[in-house]
């Protein structure tokens, strides 16, 4: 069982060129797959396609096959897909419904849309808040949270749908280092404890080095490299692809250039 893309191509409605070309990858439950690439490489498009929002919600033209646990996203409705694969975007503010007075109600928004019994809603909200260690925020106004807290609430809102897979589109891009650390810690714990498959698109390769077992490098909508995180993130061609290597790799290279040998295990 996996979230699977086979020879996927995607063109936005009205666009002349494709945003994704011949992309194939698999995300298994309990694994974290990192997606990295320069601006306009197709990371966000890949996230929308993987979660089934493209083309179901935003239109456009999809070729190839995207399946979530064997169900083709092409034939499923958005609200059905929401229970299989959740997606979190860059900007936390746009992901909050704006109709709720407390974080508890915000997290309950998705399960309530499904018309679940109130007991099931309460179970899911408690589980999602607990999984991200934000129970103390339950009574807070969602509009008055820090960036990192708001992103965690957005993530909890998606988690409460109990999806088997999570797609995170640059979840820390608008956060300060403290907020980034808050979200990264939560994602790491989530992947380990919940058994969900997590796809993270990120500029921050340090974050991917910390979280991902596998990494895909995208460029011009195509897969440029795909493999184990420690191998891909140490690839000499990263700079050429517009991707800054993780700080550990840069330190290793700088030390090598200066003629200093650093034991690999000491470079975090």
């Amino acid at each position, binding site marked *: 069982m996996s979230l699977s893309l086979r020879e996927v191509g995607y063109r936005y409605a009205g666009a002349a060129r494709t945003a994704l070309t011949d992309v194939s990858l698999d995300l298994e439950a309990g694994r974290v797959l990192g997606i990295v690439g320069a601006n306009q490489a197709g990371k966000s498009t890949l996230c929308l396609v993987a979660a089934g929002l493209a083309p179901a919600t935003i239109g456009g033209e999809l070729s190839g096959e995207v399946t979530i646990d064997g169900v083709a996203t092409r034939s499923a409705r958005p609200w059905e897909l929401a229970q299989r694969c959740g997606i979190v975007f860059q900007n936390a503010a746009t992901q909050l*419904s704006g109709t709720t007075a407390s974080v508890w*109600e915000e997290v309950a928004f998705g399960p309530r849309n499904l018309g679940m019994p109130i007991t099931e809603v309460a179970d899911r909200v408690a589980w999602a808040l607990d999984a991200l260690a934000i129970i103390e925020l339950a009574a807070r106004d969602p509009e008055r949270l820090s960036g990192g807290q708001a992103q965690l609430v957005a993530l909890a809102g998606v988690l409460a749908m109990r999806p088997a897979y999570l797609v995170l589109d640059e979840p820390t891009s608008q956060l300060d280092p403290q907020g980034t650390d808050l979200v990264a810690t939560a994602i790491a714990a989530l992947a380990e404890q919940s058994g969900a498959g997590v796809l993270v698109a990120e500029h921050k390769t340090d974050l991917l080095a910390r979280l991902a077992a596998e990494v895909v490098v995208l460029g011009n909508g195509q897969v440029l490299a795909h493999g184990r995180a420690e191998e891909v993130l140490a690839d000499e061609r990263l700079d050429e692809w517009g991707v800054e290597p993780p700080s550990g790799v840069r330190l290793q290279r700088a030390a090598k250039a200066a003629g200093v040998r650093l034991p690999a295990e000491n470079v975090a």
Partner: protein
Amino acid sequence: MTTAGHRSDLRPAVPAFVQQPPTGAYRSLNPTTKLVIAVVEALIAFVLRGWTGLLVVLAVVVATAVVARIGRAMLPFVLATIPLIASILLVNTFLYPGATDAIVHIGPFAPTWTGLEFAVQAALRVVAFALSVAVFGLTTRPDDLVADLERRGLNRRVGFVVSATLRTVPRILQRAGEITEAQRARGMDTEGSLWRRVRGVIPLAGPLIFGALTEVEEQAMALEARAFSAPGRRTVLRAFPDSGAQRGARWVLLVVLVMVVGLSVTGRLEFLP
């Protein structure tokens, strides 16, 4: 924490702060009652010509705001009307068609008393509209409105659109402030003379409008990611206060609105000052 429905004590409960309905003389009214009051106030302010309807509506809106204790919170809604009010005052005072009772002659321009009176009335109508929307928005939980309208058989999208629209006003003002600060940080002069301020508005419009449009698209996707389009009724978290008196009041208000619109359109209320 309290429990809801048939449940084991070991299961998580719906917190008391979620189940508790709003309190206070005006806030505790049913969301649909407050919506009807706001709609009736806003429409009467616009439909009824002259000063009477306008001043009555303004008095009622201010009274409800005082009862609901939301005086200062209404400020962003009033501020949002300033550009529109400024243009109404300028255009009508200086360019009112057919008016000859000039207040003063300034070169080729001659502001008139007739134009000024019309402009002040029109501006107050905009203020009355904004305040009635503000009173409703500030005293009603959007989620309660969505749930109550859905309970009455309306599609959840209708309630959501009403709620989202109300939320837009303070958000756009906040965003405008952020963009202005960013432009000021890059050296743009947004203070000083009127001409400088007007010039400062132009580069504000692009980021404001395009940013809002991008946000709308992303929010629509985020809603779909949480099954907003799922069929069937949403789970209701708390009971909404309603009563025979409120139901009766809603019907009376709607009948009054229809009568005022009918009489105004047929010219039978022209005796009012």
